[in-house]
């Protein structure tokens, strides 16, 4: 009973249950079609002509493909917590950062190259710098001008892709260089995006663990006025959250761009802002700001990717997939909604008292 109560109050309960459910669907489906029921979890080594020996399996695929959303979810969690709003520009910012990077790597106006015009590191730094710039722009609007986050970030949401095209002279810039492609490919047998995501997660965890940033941001998100009286600089902290969100968006942009070795301004990060926001919600975080749970958001990100991959595995066409995804999301967010939780609590309490009387 005690353990049960502990499980019930575990903050990661919902995202973990959601993830397990998705896995269960896979197992049942595989069993039903006569495959090995555990084929979802199977990881094998395969030899490929392009990348050598690599890890292969559906799980690996999910973690790999989920990298961008997971990275975005980190920044989004901070933004939601500090400002009770969402940064809807992250998908577009990803694309802008990718364009700026590729412009630097290929040279302005070059549509395709195999040799880098500038060292790789310059391109990467350019992307991160652009991400920070976008984050700072959003952050200034939200924290110093008190513009609603949705409206403030709507500006870059609609403008960033166009700016990206401008930077690339209206071209899709291809950078077919192995040292660049490496970021979206493999390090030994492991997909590099997974490693990048892990590094991001470790970095932010260390920052949250070793500094008071986490408490500061939550405090400002819960009560900005009281936080100011207690000596926190509410504005600066909000700004910082948006700045970090922009930087994480640039990292996601680098990964996405490297996967396709190009800066496809119209498609990189398309709709990913919604997936990132959803990850935060799935992770059990209130979109009303305040307390946050980063682990939840990250599990949420991989859950979304797992749903997508599972649907493809089930043979759902990519056009119909969003419908099923929507249904699953509805179920998960309803389970998480406070009125629903209260309803369940009341129900189980009523049952418990009935049991006593009988």
């Amino acid at each position, binding site marked *: 009973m005690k353990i049960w109560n502990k499980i019930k109050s575990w903050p990661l309960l919902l995202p973990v249950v959601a993830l397990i459910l998705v896995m269960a669907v896979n197992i049942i489906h595989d069993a039903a079609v006569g495959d090995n029921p555990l084929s979802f979890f199977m990881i094998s080594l395969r030899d490929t002509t392009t990348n050598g020996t690599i890890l292969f399996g559906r799980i690996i695929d999910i973690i790999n493909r989920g990298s961008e959303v997971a990275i975005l979810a980190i920044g989004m969690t901070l933004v939601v917590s500090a400002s009770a709003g969402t940064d809807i520009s992250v998908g577009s910012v990803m694309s802008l950062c990718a364009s700026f990077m590729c412009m630097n790597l290929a040279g302005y106006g070059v549509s395709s190259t195999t040799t880098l015009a500038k060292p790789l590191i310059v391109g990467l730094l350019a992307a991160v710098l652009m991400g920070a710039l976008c984050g700072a722009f959003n952050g200034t609007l939200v924290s110093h001008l008190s513009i609603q986050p949705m409206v403030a970030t709507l500006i870059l949401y609609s403008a960033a892709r166009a700016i990206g095209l401008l930077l690339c002279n209206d071209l899709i810039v291809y950078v077919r260089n192995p040292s660049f492609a490496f970021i979206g490919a493999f390090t030994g047998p492991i997909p590099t995006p997974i490693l990048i995501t892990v590094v991001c997660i470790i970095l932010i965890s260390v920052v949250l663990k*070793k*500094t*008071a*940033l986490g*408490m*500061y941001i*939550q*405090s400002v998100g*819960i*009560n900005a*006025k*009281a*936080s*100011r*009286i*207690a*000596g*926190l*600089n509410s504005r600066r902290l909000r700004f910082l959250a948006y700045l970090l969100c922009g930087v994480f968006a640039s990292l996601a942009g680098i990964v996405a761009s490297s996967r396709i070795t190009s800066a496809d301004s119209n498609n990189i990060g398309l709709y990913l802002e919604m997936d990132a926001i959803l990850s935060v919600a799935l992770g059990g975080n209130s979109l009303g700001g*305040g*307390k946050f749970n980063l682990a939840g958001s990250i599990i949420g990100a991989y859950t979304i990717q797992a749903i997508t991959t599972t649907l493809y595995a089930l043979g759902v066409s990519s056009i119909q997939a969003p419908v099923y995804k929507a249904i699953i999301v509805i179920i998960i967010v309803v389970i998480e909604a406070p009125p629903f939780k209260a309803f369940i609590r*009341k129900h189980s309490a009523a049952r418990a008292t009935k049991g006593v009387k009988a």
Partner: protein
Amino acid sequence: MEENVVLTARGISMTFPGVKALDNVDFTLRKGEIHALMGENGAGKSTLIKCLTGINDFEAGEIHIEGIDGPVRNHSTKDAQNVGISTVYQEVNLCPNLSVAENLFIGREPLTKIRTIDRKSYNKRSAKIMEDLGISVDVTQNLENYSLAIQQMVAIARAVDMDCKVLILDEPTSSLDDEEVEKLFTLMRKLKEKGVGIIFVTHFLEQVYKVCDRITVLRNGTYVGEYTVEELPRVKLVAAMLGKDLDDLAEIKKEQKDYTNEPMEISAKGLSHAGTIKPFDLDIHKGEVVGIGGLLGSGRSELARCIYGADKAQTGTLEISGEPVKINQPIDAMNKGVGMLPDDRKAEGIIADLSVRENIILALQAKRGMFRQLTRAQQEEIADKYIDLIKIKTPSKDTLVKQLSGGNQQKVILARWLATNADFLILDEPTRGIDVGTKSEIQKLIVKLAGEGKSVLFISSEIEEMLRTCNRMVIMRDGQKVGEIDEDLSQEGVMKAIAGGES
């Protein structure tokens, strides 16, 4: 049911995680009586009221209401209103940007034949309602144009007009000045004559004796007893609430001595903030407790906020410990050893969703800076120390602060500032909404801090409290510092100074 009884609650029990909030509590309310519900913070007053109004779902017990067969169980305030229970809280829950009449009829607007809102009739009816209750207002004016007291009376009028048999007033007088309180009492007496049963929750003992007929006392979630006002004089009431005789408040008395030779802690010259406080000078010496007297809205809090940088001073100079400083925001003042406990606990004090521990260490952590985080062990040590020192009642240090009672939340914020070891503390209404026992503890603490060489700027609506603790009082009127009293601190003298006029 006994005759004349409108509401009975029997054996109400309710548990919050970790705390038994109510244990077998009884309550009886008769027609046309004003019934005080008394108890310390965390005694279960609010919890009981929330059970009556359907906000809390109690576990055991029954509530009966006159004219309704069988036990009543409300699941929302709407349910409660339907059975005739209305509540008016300390914070007015009306819409300031709507007119008085609109507020009176919101959600139940009178309609014309074609189902549109009948403005004419509701303005007329509103005017009549207000007139009947002896409240003179223009019902077509927006509510925000009126004082808090009038707003509260509008809330009461609304409740009464909805056919309420039971009117619950939860700390209605906390933010009113004396005159406004008197107006409220007149209204309460009028309602009493009409046969409304009123449950009155307050921390001001003298108010109980002014208007109430009966008193029910709760302590630690249990029922102590029901008394008529005559059989429970003030001292006995306090004893019943505390479960022991109260330390004689008179014992708290700061020794008067000459502080003029002590080093200067705070020296403000011509500080002001447009729209809230006119330029003022203020000197506070080391170890001195200075009180600010004045009516609500006279600029008491504003003066303090200006020193602290909560409202940035636009003119003038400030010296702290003899050193000129520029304060742009609270953290600047904090770094100079200043701390401020704001008067609005909910809006500017607690961080509701953080734990007691985090709330206590917050200011200290802010002072240290983001990169020098207190370790978990240090945090726990500090939290434990202050929970113990000022007796914060909490199930654990990791309980969310919003789950504590109001008085304990206040103590948590006090602990936050004590933890920063500030040399100069601004305490704005530290005892508001706090029970007598805690009040005297806080007053003792102030005197003790001063004894340790800290300076305190103390703001309170209760003059007595300041007389006991302060060496000197600053008098405020209409956003202006009008004088100081350092000799002959007496209730009468201070009142006269606040009221103004010659002599």
